[in-house]
C-alpha cells in the first residue's frame, strides 16, 4: 500500500498525459524523476558504474551534463533537443543505440516522458538542485478565505487545483478523541468529553486550542511522543544479536520522555543525543542522551570478528542518523557511491568516522553493561542522588564534632565504672540452654531448661580474666548426652565467647549422626571462620555456611549464630561477631526437612573420632529457642568489650585502650552520637535504595585520538582503502571551523541554519504522526528517489516556523491541531473520492487504524486498569507461552519469559520489555517494528492475526471485563451501561438503531451464559485483576463480550 500511494503521488505531481504538457517543464518536478529512474544507474553519482568506461557521461548535475563529449559537443545542447545526443539516443530504434539499453532491464521511455524531456531541452534544459537540498526560505501563504491558519491556505490551494471540496468540521467529541490520541496516545475520559462538548458549544477553535495546550503538559503526551521517537532510535531492552541478553539502557528511554515532558527544543534534543558527552561540562542527563547511538544491536557471538562488527555498527549508526535527521539513505554508499543521491562512498566513510572513535568494544560480552556506561538513578531520584553524598559527608562531620564535644560526658561516665566479676551478669538474657564452660573441680556444668547437669572434664583449661579456668576445646570429646534438641523449622540462636589461637578446624558442639548421612547439626569452625551445618541428608538436603572472613586471632570475641528454619535455605544462617553481622558463604543450601537423631550431643567433636583441631576456647555458650534481635546481640557483645577494657587499671591503660573506651562510650552509651550514627546509617540505606532503583545505561564516549575511518572497498570490512577524516558530505558545502571534526561538530551541523534537511524532515515526520502520511510520503527518504512532497511550500513554511520558533515542536503541533485541515470530518464524498481517493490533498481528515501501543493503552485506560507510573525498568505484561524460548539460545538470560504480576501488567505499552529477536507478539502483529533497525514509518496492515489479538489476547479480554464491571456498577439501565462503554472507547453514545443491535447481542449472550454457566466462569477467569463477585456471572460475562465487541469495532480501532 505504501508503494501504491507513492506512485499516485508521483503521478499527481507530474500528470503525464500525452496531450497535456506543462507550460514550463521543471527539472525537479518533471525531469529528475524520469532520468533518475532510467539513466542514473550509468550516468549518475556512482563513479564505479558510470558509462561508457573510457569517457564516462554524467547527467545528474549541470556542472557535468554540459561538458564537451569526445566529439566536441555536449550531449545536451540547450534549446536544441534534435541536436542533443541524449534525446537522439532515447528515441533511437536501434537496439545498440537506444537508451536505456535493453540489457539494463529497463523499459524504453514512454512517449509522454520523451515529450517532457524534449520540451525541457527546448526550454533551455535548466538544472535545479534537488528540492530537499535547496536552502530554506519562508514561502508566503496563499490568500484564501478558507481555514484558520497558514496551513489551511496552502492546503486549500491544492484543493482548488484539483477541484476538491474540503469537508465540514468534525463532530466535537470525535475531534477531541482524535486530538487526544494524537497528542497523548490515549482516548479522552468521559469527563473530558463532557467538558469539551460544553467548551466547543461556546467556541470550538478556543476549545481545541485550550485542550491541546493542556494535553501538551501531561506525562501522557511525553510518553506518547517518546514512543514515536523510540521507533526512530530503534530502542530495545536486549542486545539484539545472538544471545540477545538483557541490556541496561532504559534510562535513555526515560531521558526521551523527560525531554518531551520539558518540551526540549529539537536542536538541543538532537545535540544531546548525538554528542551529549562532548558538550562542555556534560551533565549526567546529557551523557544518558547519547544512548541514541548505543541502541544499535550488538553481538557477543563466540568467534565473531571485531573489525567486521565495528564496521556493521558504524554503518547502522550512520544509516540511522542519516535517515532520522537528514532523510537520506546513505547505507547504499557503504559499498559504492550512491546511485542517485550525491553521497559518495568517501562521504559515507567520513560519516562513519564520527562514530568509530568510540571506546566501545566490538564484543558486548552479552553483558547488560557493555561499556562505556554511566550509572543513572531513576529520574525522580536524581536530585536526591546528587545531594545525598553531601548529606553523608555532613552526617560524618556531625559525628566527629560530637566526638570532640563528648569528652567531658565520657570522663564523668568513666569514673563511675568498675569491672563486673562475671560477663554473665551483664547479660540479662535468659537462655533456654547454657553451658558456662568454666571448669570447677574437674567438672563443667550446664543448664538445659530447668535441669542442671554436669560433666567430667579432664582437658586443658585457660585462665581467663574474671572467668577463671575456661575449657579448651582442642582434641576434646565430651558426650553431653541428650542435650539440646531442635527441629528443622525452629529458630535457634547460639551465642557465646570464642578465643582462637592459630589454625582451628572442626566442630565446637554438635549433634550429628555420621551413620545416617550426617543428620543433625553442628557449630563449625573452618580455618577460623565460624559457621554451621544443618543436615537432613548430606549433601543435597543440607545447609552449610561459614563466614567469608575468619575471626581475629588471640582475642575474645562475642559471637551469635542464628539458624532460622523458616527462612529459605540460602538465608537461614546469620552470624554476628562482636555485635556486627558477618557475610556468610553457603556451600550447600538444600531443603532440610528433618533433623531428628538419637546420637548424643558432643562438645568439641561430632563423632567419637572427629574432634576439633587447633587451639580454641569457648565459654558461656547459650542456646536460645528464638531469634535474638540485633539489639540484644549488640548489647551482649559490647558488655564483653567493656569488661576487657575496664579490667586494665586506669593508670595502666595505654592510648589505644583509652581510645577504645571512648569509642565504646560513644558507640553504645552516648545518646547524641547514637542519634547521629542512626541518621548516617539511614542515609547509607537510602543511597543503597536509590542505587538499586537505578541502572547503568549505555553511552557514547570518545577516544582521545582524532576521528577517522578507512574506506572499505565494496563495504567489506577487511578491504581497508583510503584513510579519511570525519567530515560532512561534500554536497552540503560545509565549512568546518576546526581542522578535525568530532561528533559535536556533526551534531551542530545537523541543526545548523545551513542544513536545510533536518527541519524539513522533522516537521514532515510530525505531520506524518497527525495525518498518517507525511507531506513527503517517504519519511525516511528525501533523496532523489524518495517521494515528492504533495505540498512543498507548506513543508518549507513549517520547517521555517520550527527553526524560527526555537525548534519548538509543540509550536508546530499547535499549528497543526488548530488548522481547519486537521479539524475536518473524516467522511468521504463520492465526488472527492473519484478525484483523490487516497486523500493526498486532505479534503477530509485522515482516518486510519490506531497504532499497536495506542490500541493496548486504550484498552487499559478505558477499563481503568492503566497504571500511570512514569519511567523505570521495562515490564513484562501477558504474552503467550514459549514465544521467547522458540528463538533463544540456551544460555540467553531472556530465554524464558517471566510475566510480571500486579502493576507491571498494566503500564503503558512503551514500558513493555522489548526483546528484539522476539518483539512483544501482540504489538508486532499490529505492526510495531522489531526495533532491530530504525523505523520512521510504520506499516498498517489489517490481518486476521491482528483481529485475533484484539479479540482473544488476555489483556484485551481482561480489559473488556474490567470495563464491563465499571459499566454495570454505575447503572442498572441498559443504555446507560452501554453509553459508559462506548464513551470510554469511542467518545460517543450509540444511536437507537445501533443500541438495538447491541441489545440483541446482549440478550443472546445473557441467555447463552445462563444456560452454560461454566462458560461464563471461564471467561471471567481471564486476567489477573480481581473479579467483582457482586455481579452475577452470566451478566458480567455477557457484558464482557459486549465490551469486547465495541472494542473491536472499526470506529474504535480507528483514529
Amino acid at each position, binding site marked *: 500500500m505504501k508503494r501504491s500511494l507513492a506512485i499516485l503521488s508521483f503521478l499527481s505531481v507530474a500528470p503525464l498525459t500525452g496531450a497535456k504538457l506543462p507550460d514550463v517543464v521543471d527539472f525537479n518536478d518533471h525531469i529528475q524523476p524520469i532520468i533518475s529512474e532510467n539513466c542514473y544507474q550509468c550516468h549518475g553519482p556512482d563513479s564505479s558504474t558510470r558509462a561508457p568506461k573510457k569517457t564516462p557521461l554524467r547527467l545528474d548535475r549541470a556542472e557535468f551534463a554540459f561538458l564537451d563529449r569526445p566529439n566536441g559537443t555536449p550531449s545536451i545542447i540547450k534549446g536544441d533537443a534534435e541536436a542533443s545526443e541524449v534525446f537522439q539516443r532515447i528515441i533511437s530504434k536501434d537496439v545498440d543505440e537506444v537508451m536505456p539499453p535493453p540489457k539494463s532491464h529497463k523499459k524504453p521511455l514512454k512517449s509522454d516522458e520523451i515529450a517532457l524531456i524534449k520540451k525541457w531541452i527546448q526550454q533551455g534544459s535548466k538544472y535545479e538542485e534537488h528540492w530537499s537540498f535547496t536552502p530554506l526560505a519562508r514561502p508566503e501563504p496563499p490568500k484564501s478565505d478558507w481555514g484558520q491558519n497558514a496551513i489551511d491556505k496552502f492546503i486549500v490551494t491544492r484543493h482548488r487545483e484539483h477541484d476538491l471540496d474540503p469537508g465540514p468540521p468534525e463532530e466535537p467529541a470525535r475531534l477531541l478523541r482524535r486530538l487526544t490520541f494524537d497528542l497523548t496516545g490515549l482516548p479522552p475520559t468521559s469527563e473530558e468529553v463532557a467538558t469539551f462538548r460544553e467548551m466547543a458549544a461556546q467556541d470550538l477553535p478556543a476549545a481545541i486550542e485550550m485542550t491541546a495546550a493542556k494535553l501538551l503538559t501531561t506525562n501522557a503526551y511525553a510518553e506518547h511522543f517518546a514512543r514515536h521517537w523510540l521507533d526512530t532510535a530503534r530502542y530495545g531492552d536486549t542486545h539484539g544479536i545472538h544471545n540477545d541478553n538483557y541490556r541496561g539502557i532504559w534510562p535513555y528511554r526515560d531521558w526521551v520522555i523527560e525531554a518531551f515532558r520539558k518540551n526540549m527544543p529539537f536542536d538541543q534534543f538532537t545535540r544531546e543525543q548525538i554528542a551529549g558527552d562532548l558538550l562542555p561540562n556534560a551533565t549526567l542527563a546529557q551523557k544518558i542522551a547519547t544512548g541514541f547511538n548505543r541502541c544499535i544491536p550488538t553481538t557477543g557471538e563466540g*568467534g565473531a570478528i571485531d573489525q567486521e562488527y565495528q564496521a556493521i555498527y558504524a554503518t547502522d549508526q550512520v544509516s540511522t542518523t542519516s535517515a532520522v535527521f537528514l532523510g537520506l539513505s546513505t547505507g547504499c554508499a557503504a559499498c559504492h557511491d550512491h546511485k542517485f543521491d550525491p553521497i559518495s562512498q568517501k562521504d559515507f566513510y567520513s560519516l562513519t568516522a564520527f562514530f568509530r572513535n568510540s571506546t566501545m568494544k566490538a564484543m558486548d560480552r552479552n553483558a547488560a553493561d557493555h561499556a562505556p556506561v554511566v550509572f543513572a538513578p531513576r529520574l525522580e531520584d536524581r536530585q536526591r542522588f546528587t545531594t545525598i553524598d553531601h548529606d553523608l559527608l555532613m552526617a560524618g562531620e556531625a559525628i566527629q564534632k560530637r566526638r570532640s564535644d563528648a569528652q567531658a560526658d565520657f570522663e564523668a561516665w568513666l569514673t563511675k565504672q568498675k569491672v563486673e566479676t562475671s560477663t554473665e551478669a551483664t547479660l540479662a538474657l535468659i537462655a533456654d540452654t547454657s553451658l558456662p564452660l568454666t571448669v570447677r573441680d574437674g567438672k563443667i556444668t550446664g543448664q538445659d531448661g530447668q535441669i542442671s547437669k554436669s560433666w567430667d572434664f579432664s582437658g586443658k583449661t585457660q585462665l581467663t580474666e574474671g572467668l577463671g579456668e575456661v575449657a579448651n576445646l582442642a582434641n576434646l570429646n565430651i558426650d553431653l548426652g541428650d542435650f539440646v534438641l531442635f527441629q528443622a523449622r525452629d529458630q535457634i540462636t547460639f551465642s557465646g565467647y570464642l578465643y582462637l589461637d592459630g589454625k582451628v578446624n572442626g566442630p565446637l558442639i554438635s549433634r550429628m549422626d555420621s551413620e545416617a548421612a550426617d543428620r543433625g547439626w553442628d557449630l563449625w569452625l573452618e580455618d577460623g571462620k565460624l559457621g554451621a551445618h544443618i543436615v537432613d541428608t548430606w549433601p543435597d538436603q543440607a545447609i552449610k555456611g561459614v563466614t567469608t572472613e575468619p575471626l581475629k586471632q588471640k582475642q575474645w570475641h562475642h559471637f551469635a549464630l542464628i539458624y532460622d528454619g523458616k527462612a529459605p535455605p540460602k538465608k537461614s544462617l546469620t552470624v554476628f561477631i562482636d555485635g556486627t553481622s558477618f557475610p556468610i558463604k553457603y556451600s550447600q543450601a538444600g531443603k532440610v526437612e528433618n533433623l531428628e537423631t538419637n546420637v548424643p550431643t558432643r562438645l568439641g567433636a561430632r563423632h567419637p573420632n572427629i574432634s576439633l583441631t587447633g587451639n580454641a576456647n569457648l565459654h558461656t555458650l547459650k542456646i536460645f529457642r528464638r531469634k535474638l534481635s540485633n539489639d540484644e546481640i549488640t548489647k551482649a557483645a559490647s558488655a564483653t568489650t567493656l569488661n576487657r577494657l575496664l579490667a586494665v587499671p586506669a593508670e595502666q591503660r595505654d592510648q589505644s585502650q583509652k581510645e577504645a573506651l571512648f569509642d565504646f562510650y560513644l558507640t553504645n552509651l552516648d545518646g547524641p552520637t547514637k542519634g547521629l550514627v542512626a541518621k548516617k546509617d539511614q542515609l547509607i540505606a537510602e543511597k543503597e535504595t536509590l542505587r538499586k532503583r537505578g541502572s547503568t545505561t549505555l553511552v557514547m564516549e570518545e577516544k582521545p585520538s582524532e576521528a577517522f575511518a578507512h574506506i572499505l572497498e565494496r563495504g567489506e570490512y577487511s578491504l581497508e582503502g583510503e584513510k579519511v577524516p570525519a567530515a560532512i558530505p561534500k554536497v552540503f558545502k560545509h565549512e568546518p571551523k576546526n581542522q578535525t571534526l568530532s561528533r559535536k561538530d556533526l551534531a551542530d551541523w545537523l541543526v545548523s541554519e545551513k542544513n536545510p534537511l533536518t527541519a524539513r524532515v522533522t516537521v514532515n515526520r510530525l505531520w506524518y504522526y497527525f495525518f498518517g502520511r507525511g507531506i513527503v510520503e517517504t519519511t525516511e527518504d528525501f533523496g532523489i528517489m524518495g517521494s515528492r512532497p504533495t505540498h512543498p511550500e507548506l513543508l518549507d513554511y513549517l520547517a521555517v516556523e520550527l527553526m524560527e520558533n526555537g525548534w519548538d515542536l509543540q509550536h508546530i503541533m499547535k499549528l497543526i491541531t488548530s488548522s481547519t485541515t486537521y479539524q475536518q470530518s473524516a467522511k468521504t464524498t463520492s465526488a472527492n473520492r473519484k478525484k483523490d481517493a487516497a486523500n493526498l490533498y486532505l479534503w477530509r481528515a485522515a482516518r486510519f487504524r490506531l497504532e499497536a501501543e495506542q490500541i493496548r493503552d486504550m484498552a487499559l485506560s478505558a477499563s481503568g486498569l492503566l497504571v500511570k507510573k512514569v519511567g523505570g525498568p521495562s515490564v513484562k505484561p501477558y504474552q503467550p507461552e514459549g514465544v521467547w524460548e522458540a528463538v533463544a*539460545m540456551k544460555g540467553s538470560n531472556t530465554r524464558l519469559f517471566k510475566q510480571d504480576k500486579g502493576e507491571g501488567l498494566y503500564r503503558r505499552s512503551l514500558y513493555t520489555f522489548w526483546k528484539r*529477536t522476539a518483539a512483544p507478539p501482540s504489538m508486532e*502483529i499490529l505492526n510495531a517494528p522489531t526495533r532491530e533497525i530504525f523505523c520512521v514509518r510504520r506499516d498498517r496492515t489489517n*490481518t486476521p492475526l*491482528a483481529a485475533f489479538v484484539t479479540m482473544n489476547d488476555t489483556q484485551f479480554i481482561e480489559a473488556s471485563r474490567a470495563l464491563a464491571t465499571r459499566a454495570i456498577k454505575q447503572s442498572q439501565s441498559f443504555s446507560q451501561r452501554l453509553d459508559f462503554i462506548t464513551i470510554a472507547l469511542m467518545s460517543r453514545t450509540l444511536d437507537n438503531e445501533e443500541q438495538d443491535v447491541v441489545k440483541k447481542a446482549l440478550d443472546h449472550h445473557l441467555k447463552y451464559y445462563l444456560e452454560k454457566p461454566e462458560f461464563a*466462569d471461564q471467561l471471567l477467569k481471564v486476567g489477573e485483576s480481581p473479579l467483582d463477585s457482586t455481579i452475577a456471572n452470566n451478566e458480567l460475562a455477557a457484558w464482557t463480550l459486549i465490551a469486547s465487541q465495541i472494542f473491536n*469495532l*472499526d470506529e474504535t480501532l480507528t483514529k
Partner: protein
Amino acid sequence: MNTVADFNAAISRRQFFRKNGTGLGAASLATLLPGGLSGLSNSSVPSELKKVAPKAKRVIYLSMLGAPSQLDLFDYKPKLKDRFKDDLSSYLKEQGQRLTGMTSGQAKFPVAPSIFEFKEHGQSGAWVSELLPHTAKMVDDIAIVKSMNTEAINHEPANQLCYTGNQQNGKPSLGSWLAYGLGSQNEDLPNFVVLHAQHTGPGNVQAISSRLWGPGFLPGKYAGVAFRPKGDPVLYLRNAPGIDRELRRNMLDSLNTLNQKSYDIVGDNEIQTRMQQYEMAFRMQASVPELSDLSSESDQTREMYGPQSKTSGSFASSCILARRMMERGVQFVQIFHRGWDQHSNLPAHIKPQCEDIDQPCWALVQDLKQRGMLDDTLVIWGGEFGRTVYSQGTLTEKNYGRDHHPRAFSMWMAGGGVKGGQVYGETDDFGYNVTENPVHISDLHTTILHQLGINHHKLTFKYQGLDQKLTGVKPTQVISEILE
C-alpha cells in the same frame, strides 16, 4: 520499474475508483492479509513475473540451523584417514581464509577425518554417511550439491544471508519475498509458514530471530506466520475461554452490522477491509486447527515418518504438517531445526540430530511422491555454512569438534523440477575449497525463484530509492545443471 508494485498500484487504482456500495468486493483486500493471504488468489501474480514456466508451485525448506558437518554427512574424503592429526597451519595460512575467534588462537589445526562410514548408494552411487541411512535410500530422488559456499563465517550474518539474502539487518526473508511475488492460493491460510522443530542433540544451540522470517521493508502482511506446537497453532487464534464458535459468530454478526452502518455514513473502504479481516479470522479459526490436527493421518503415514511423528513439535510431525500445508495451498513452509553447531564432541552430538531428521526427510520426499506432489514441490535441505576439516579442540581417534567453514558445504534439493540422482560440485581433498561448479547462497535463491517461475531481476521492491532484490547486486546464476 518495479513490476510487482506496478501491478499492485494498478489494482489499487482500480479499487479506489470502483464503486462498491454493497458486499465485500476484492476492492480493499490489498492491505489485508498476512503472508500474501490476499484473497485475490493467483490474480495477484504479475504476468511479467511468469515469463519462465514454473516447475515448482511450492517450497519446503528444511533449515538445519547451526550448520551440519558436510564432512560427516555427504562430502566423503577417504584420503583424510592417512592424514589424521596432520597440522594444517601452513595450509590455512596459504588459503588466506579468516578463522573465527574460536579457533584462530589454536596452536595447531590437526586434520580430523570423519569417524563415520560412507557407502555408495542408489543408481547414482552417491556417497552418504552411515548417519543418514534413510537419506541414503533416496539419493536417486535428490540432487546433492557439495559446492555450496557463503561469505559469512558466523551464525548471525550467515543465517541472515541464507534466509534474507543479505548479511545486514532489515531485509525481507526469502519466504516474504515469495509471498510478495506469488500471491496466495488459499483464502483461509497464510502462504508463508514457519515451523520450529524440537531438536534432541545436546550440543550448542544457536539463537534465531524473527528477522529470519520477517518482512523487512516489505509490507507487514508478507511476514511468515509461525505455527506453534503447543498452545494456539497460530498466536491468539483460539477464542478466549468461555467463548465458543456460536458466540463468536453472534458477536461478529453484531459487529458487522455496526461496521456496515459506519461504512454507510463515512464511506471509507478501510471499514470494509476491517469487516473482511474479521470474517477471514473467523474462517481461519476453523481452517488452522483442521490443518494442525494430525489425528486423521493414517498409521501407515505415521510409521513412515518414524516414532517421533507422534510427538507434537518434533521434526517428524513438522514434516507431516508441512505436507498438509502444501496440500492446502500454502506455498512456502520453512522448518527450522536447531542444534547443529558441533564445535566439540561432534560424533556424539551429531547422532541424535541426524536421528531427528533422517527418516522424516526421507518420508517427506516419499510422501510427496506418492501423492503426486513431488514434481511441483521443491524440497531443500541444508545449513548456513559448513564445518572445518581440522579439529577444534582436542582430537582423538574417536572424538573431535569442527569450527565454522564458509567456503564449502553440502545441501540437497528434491522435486520441483530438480533432477534426482546426482551429485553436483566437487571440493578438494580437505573438503576445504570448491574445485568444481561453485554454488553461492544467492545462486540457490536465484534457482528457487527460477523454479517458481520468477526471474530474480524482476522480483523487486522499491525501498530507500532502490529497486531492492532478494539476490542483491552481484551477478548470480541459476544452477541449471541440476534441473530437469
